[in-house]
């Protein structure tokens, strides 16, 4: 592991920009499809469910401006976690092994080659080698158009709090997400879009299709308002 990283850094110094070291950034871009439901990268990237990942290499964990981090990440950040190739590699292999109780509901990439490819892709968006990103919720890419008038509904968080009783039999309010994804602190648009994707059968999970299936547009907006608001 150490040897591989050392070799990688040398290559980086020599001919950076595309991380040919061990990874194929084009394949990494495809793999990033698993991340892009929550994370943005590149020009105009902003924090969504997860923080944006520009300049992730060399960045201290938990510092993306304007992003509300989970307690798990605040702890990791306070402990001095910095994203370099090694920590990113460990994290992507099994996110929960490195930082527990985050909202990032991603099981990890077990194959070294996949991680190398993904890191090669991510590194194109960092100014210098080293380092990795951190947390965010459920990771299924949403390609589901929700009508603007539905997205525009302003939900009632008090009603959402009551309705959330149907969610909290499984999803933890604390934001912990092992086995069942975290749904706290999602941006409104992502939450509403995901719920409509279940309701319309675009997302596949049978429990969620059933639960979302009987929620009205207003009820989905109420839940989104509540879960966005809780600490």
């Amino acid at each position, binding site marked *: 592991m150490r040897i591989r990283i050392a070799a990688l850094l040398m290559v980086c110094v020599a001919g950076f920009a595309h991380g040919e070291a061990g990874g194929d950034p084009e394949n990494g871009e495809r793999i990033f499809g698993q991340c892009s439901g929550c994370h943005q990268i590149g020009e105009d990237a902003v924090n969504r469910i997860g923080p944006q990942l520009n300049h992730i290499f060399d960045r201290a964990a938990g510092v993306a401006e304007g992003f509300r981090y989970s307690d798990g990440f605040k702890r990791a950040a306070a402990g001095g976690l910095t994203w370099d190739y090694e920590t990113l590699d460990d994290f992507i292999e099994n996110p929960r092994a490195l930082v527990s109780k985050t909202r990032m509901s991603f099981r990890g990439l077990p194959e070294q080659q996949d991680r190398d490819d993904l890191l090669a892709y991510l590194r194109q968006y960092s100014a210098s080698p080293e380092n990795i990103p951190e947390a965010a919720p459920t990771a299924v890419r949403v390609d589901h158009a929700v009508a603007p008038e539905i997205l525009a509904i302003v939900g009632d968080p008090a009603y959402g709090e009551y309705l959330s009783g*149907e969610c909290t*039999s499984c999803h933890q309010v604390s934001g912990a997400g092992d086995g069942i994804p975290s749904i706290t602190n999602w941006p409104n648009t992502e939450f509403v879009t995901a719920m409509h994707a279940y309701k319309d059968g675009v997302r596949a999970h049978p*429990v969620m299709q*059933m639960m979302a299936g*009987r929620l009205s547009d207003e009820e989905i907006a109420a839940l989104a308002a509540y879960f966005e608001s809780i600490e």
Partner: protein
Amino acid sequence: MPFNRRTFIGSAAVTASLLAAPMVRAQGKPRVVVVGGGAGGATAARYIAKDSEGAIEVTLIEPTRTYYTCFFSNLYLGGFREMQSLGHSYGTLAAEYGINVVHDWAVGVDRDAKTVTLAGGGSLPYDRLILSPGIDFVDGAVEGWDISSQNAMPHAYKAGSQTELLKAQILAMPQGGTFAMVAPPNPYRCPPGPYERISMVAHLLKQSNPTAKILIADPKESFSKQGLFEEGWNDNYTGMIERIGPDFGGANVAVDPVAMTLSIDGDVSNVDVCNVIPAMKAGRIADIAGITEGNWAPVHAADMSSKMDDSIHVLGDAAAQGDMPKSGFSANSQAKVCANAVRGALTGSTVFPARFANTCWSLIDTDDGVKVGATYEATDEKIAKVDGFVSQTGESDEVRAATYRESIGWYDGITSDMFG
């Protein structure tokens, strides 16, 4: 943060009144007494305490200091969980939610005086009483068995020492011995439970005692997730499991806990372990309160209130409510509807319409999880099913493994929802 302000004002008001006149306040506050600290009772107590922000005095009566969940206790039998991981304390409910947790048995209810009597003496007044006592067994349901024989022939249908006893007996079986189960008639707690248990026992025996046999005497024609379980038993535990249904005398059984025999339709077999799961009824306090009809306590679907007494609500296994299965998930779901209604009645908070859901996960073998679930609504007559789904036979290993992981996540979710 829309809730910060409300939370702050609420706690400030409580603090002020505590300093000013605690006795007056204590007498003036509406009182809710909850009997039973499982999925129904613990959830109801927590939600009422949490959402009323100190405006309601909540007492929870539960005899055990450490609560072992019945759900997932089969996974302990199969070697997938430690018993310790199923134990939960009431410390958070007391310390963070201000619930008065009383470790005692409720042995009497005076519906006119609105008080609950404790086994240890004393009584507790209530404005609303929530009973969530789970199940007890019907006397004489299995010929030859009563509660005095539960050491020789464990039911293991209330988790804890019975579950540990059953596992020890399974591990002590002679090579090639017989594990027998007397399965219960409908309705009973956790419909897939006996069959998940068979799967877990088979999993355990396959490693420690591969020539052992499993015999089920079953009074029911069919059972929950039958196709899924039978597929799994054929694939993973080939030739180990024999189920005798009612057509072949599965409803006509007797046991002899001294001789360790099981008689099915007069045909007597020697068995090494006999797991007797008798017919069930509402936990005894429901009967004592006089709100049962037959074995269960009928309730209104809208707020889980007893059809015999508006001031009493019944949750979970003990309730006769309609279409929901008797499960921890159901009890947890009903508790939140009940908590919302009780709080509304006592403090005037908004009461939202009832909505219920249930999902039951079962483990068949390592990483082989299946599930069944449904949503429900309140009608005038009962809790009525709206929509549902069940895992399919022939699902991929990945789907089954994901379902199992999900069930572990659910366990963490529901126990947080119950115990804080």
